[in-house]
């Protein structure tokens, strides 16, 4: 069921972020890499603040700090000076350069500037590697920026050669806890894996005695170079388009077979992931995960009556919305509205693909939506809970219903980077959180106030 979405010209409380932010996040998950924005100073500072508020980790993003005269005469000289300064102070292995709406519009050719810069510096100079990605903020969302950066890292750095037994894993943008879990799972299947990016340590690191200029961890650059030799690529994202897909590039260029799956959220989507790993590794699913799956289904049964028939509004990044719908549907919660600020054109089909065999009817699904529109629609839908990031809190408060926090940004709670979404253990965490949110709401609203369920 797809209704005509209200068409307003203005945007109020957007349900998306801008492209360069996504590129910076992707670069933060690569070993020894400093993200760099070719634009005016404000972009870097705003995005740092926004990302820091979620992770509570230092986020150094360099900037060309362009001023008016650079906007007129071109930002090349400042880009080069900035790269020299970052190299001097951070000694990075790589600088990941993303453009902004300013430099895209004045027509700066970053690729050309980088060639010039490397020529000018000469071979003797120990320069870091460079990767550049075009991220004009006037099209797409932070997710196109994220995937675009991954795509460019792969296309600019990876090489072919003798095939290895390594598996490439491109999970997209998930939490630090999720990246950690994926490492563990790949290891338990005995698979040698290159996961790109990897924000498990870089954005959730320990307290230090000395400030690390660049946080340890991230996908090793050497591993990125050999991604073209891998035996297969696993890529998460049912709404991902080929032009933004690193997996697609590796398949087309080096013939690395691509297996695209949804984010493994909930039992069914995780089963598909594990089946794939079984095939790739030739091993049985390790007992540990069979036990996790068993406990999860036992928990589903223990809690099913508290959640059945409840109505949820799910919003945020498209692939996360799809994954959350898969989980909600299989526990008996009805997604009534699924919304994203993004516009892949694939959201409705992707949600149908993971829910059609369970849900009696499809939810209302809207791309390109903001919170004003979500709020307007929510009135007639009488939802029982919201599922998404912190920016839905004002709506949850207005509707007086619980918000189950998933994704990015989590600005009003600690531990956003440690929310586990993926795998059986992630589903366990989400199921407990959703069930308890609904139970707590009922308990708080009750005049009796029982201390048992």
């Amino acid at each position, binding site marked *: 069921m797809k209704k005509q979405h209200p068409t307003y010209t203005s945007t109020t409380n957007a349900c998306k972020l801008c492209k360069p932010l996504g590129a910076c996040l992707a670069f933060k998950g690569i070993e020894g890499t400093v993200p760099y924005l070719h634009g005016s100073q404000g*972009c870097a500072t705003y995005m740092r603040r926004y990302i820091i508020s979620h992770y*509570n*980790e230092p986020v150094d993003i360099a*900037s*060309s700090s362009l001023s008016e005269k650079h906007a007129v005469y071109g930002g090349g000289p400042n880009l080069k000076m*900035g790269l020299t300064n970052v190299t*001097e102070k951070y000694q990075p292995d790589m600088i990941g350069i993303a453009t902004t709406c300013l430099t895209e519009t004045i027509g700066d050719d970053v690729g050309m500037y980088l060639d010039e810069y490397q020529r000018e510096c000469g071979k003797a100079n120990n320069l870091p590697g460079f990767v550049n990605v075009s991220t*004009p*903020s006037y099209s797409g969302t932070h997710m196109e920026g994220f995937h675009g950066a991954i795509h460019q890292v792969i296309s600019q750095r990876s090489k072919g050669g003798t095939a290895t037994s390594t598996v490439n894993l491109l999970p997209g943008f998930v939490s630090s806890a999720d990246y950690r879990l994926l490492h563990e799972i790949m290891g338990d299947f005995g698979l040698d894996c290159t996961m790109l990016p990897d924000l498990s340590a870089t954005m959730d690191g320990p307290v230090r005695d000395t*400030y690390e200029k660049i946080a340890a961890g991230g996908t090793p650059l050497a591993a990125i170079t050999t991604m073209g030799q891998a035996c297969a690529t696993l890529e998460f994202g049912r709404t991902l388009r080929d032009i933004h897909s690193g997996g697609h590039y590796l398949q087309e260029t080096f013939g690395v077979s691509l297996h695209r799956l949804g984010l493994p959220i909930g039992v069914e989507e995780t089963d598909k992931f594990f089946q794939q790993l079984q095939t790739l590794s030739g091993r049985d699913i390790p007992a540990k995960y069979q036990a996790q799956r068993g406990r999860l289904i036992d928990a589903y049964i223990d809690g099913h009556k508290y959640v059945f028939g409840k109505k949820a509004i799910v919003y945020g990044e498209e692939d996360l919305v799809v994954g959350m719908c898969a989980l909600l549907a299989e526990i008996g919660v009805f997604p009534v509205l699924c919304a994203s600020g993004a516009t892949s054109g694939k959201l409705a089909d992707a949600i149908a693909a993971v829910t059609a065999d369970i849900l009696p009817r499809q939810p209302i699904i809207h791309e390109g939506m903001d919170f004003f529109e979500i709020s307007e629609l929510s009135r007639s839908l009488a939802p029982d809970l919201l599922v998404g990031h912190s920016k839905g809190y004002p709506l949850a408060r207005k509707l007086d219903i619980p918000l189950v926090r998933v994704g990015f940004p989590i600005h009003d709670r600690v531990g956003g980077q440690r929310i586990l979404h993926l795998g059986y253990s992630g589903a366990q965490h989400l199921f407990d959180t959703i069930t308890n949110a609904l139970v707590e709401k009922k308990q708080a609203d009750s005049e009796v106030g029982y201390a048992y369920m």
Partner: protein
Amino acid sequence: METVALHDREDQIHITGETPLKIACNKESLAGAVSQRACVFCGSRVVLYPIADALHLVHGPIGCAVYTWDIRGALSSGPELHRLSFSTDLQEMDVIFGGEKKLQAALTELIDRHAPKAAFVYSTCIVGIIGDDLEAVCRHVEEAKGIPVIPVKSEGFKGNKRAGYKAACDAMARLIGTGNTNGISRFSLNILGDFNLAGEIWMIRDYYESMGVEVVANITGDGRVDDICRAHGAALNVVQCSGSTMLLADMMEEQYGIPSLRVSYFGIEDMSEALYDIARFFQQRYPEDSEADAIMERTRALVQKEVRTLVPQLEKYRRDLAGKKAAIYVGGSFKAFSLVKAFRLVDMQVVLVGSQTGTEEDYQELEAITDPGTVIVDDSNPLELTSFLKEKGVDVFVGGVKERPIAYKLGIGFCDHNHERKEALAGFEGMLNFAREVHSSVMSPVWRFVPRKDSNLKEEAV
């Protein structure tokens, strides 16, 4: 230890007492230096933000609007239009063909929907490049809708945050002088540069009202368009956070002959001094006027009462905090002066102080009020700050959200003194909250586990 500053930044760092002060400041940020500064748009947006019954429409791609959505803890006692994030969300086609039509449609739609008292339209980087005529669109909508519709010339690349303050002041100046000033007391003032974070301006207003002084407009905190329109009827402008609104006060002095006083509401000393300065101003303005003397009397009584309540309560924090070391890195240097004094009040030593946008005079004053050896920095960055924090053995760092992880990652305490905070730190009560905030970080037992305190870990590291 390796040099922490880039060569081109060495003249933006000074050590109190070492050489005569000559600090370079008010410069463009150095490319690649990871400045903690924002942009022109940010400067405008944060100053105008608390005008709660105006529509604030960001004309540009989505980022600029979404990163400033509900960003300030500026409270309103009534309408809360300022807490919504409005954008024209410019798309590629708008960039190619121009965004004026979309802007006009969006403005009209939002004014019809929310019936605001005025609208501010913020220009962003891209609008400056594609050359949309904001003035023309605003004029057109103003005529059609009958409310002031004001363009804010805040293209991000046209300077730093200070340029944004100026654009905001220019925008407010267009409202001032358009309202009716009948019935305003001779003993009246406007509050500029307090943003009503956590309700601070309500405390300050209470002080003024109990002194017998009328507040005409709290321009930048819990602000209202109608009040701003009649702000030129006040006898005095009281300016805090001088970086952001001193320009507006200067404009009002030139145009309407309203004098201004620079004050700070942080710490007992500066808060008391602010109230006395205002009382003294009215005594000088209206000599032989018994009401002016009565204001001074009431001010004395108020300060005495507040100080008498506060000092004993501070004592318990002072006992724990005495001798601890503090570092300060804030947006405007005026706040830094007060913080240096506030720390002294609880016997803490400031070893590092800096700001994003200080002027040479500001740094001279900082040098004068800090102890020898104190590091003074302009427009600093994470690498410099962390190196000084560690070298100086700092116990608590005062800054904003971007500085917080820098402190925490090194296992150092932190106090948020920026515009997102939810604790009232201004006024007499604010000093107590400030001490409590600092105390709750410095005295936490968690630091015993961090590498710099944990001898087991240190040995392992060696």
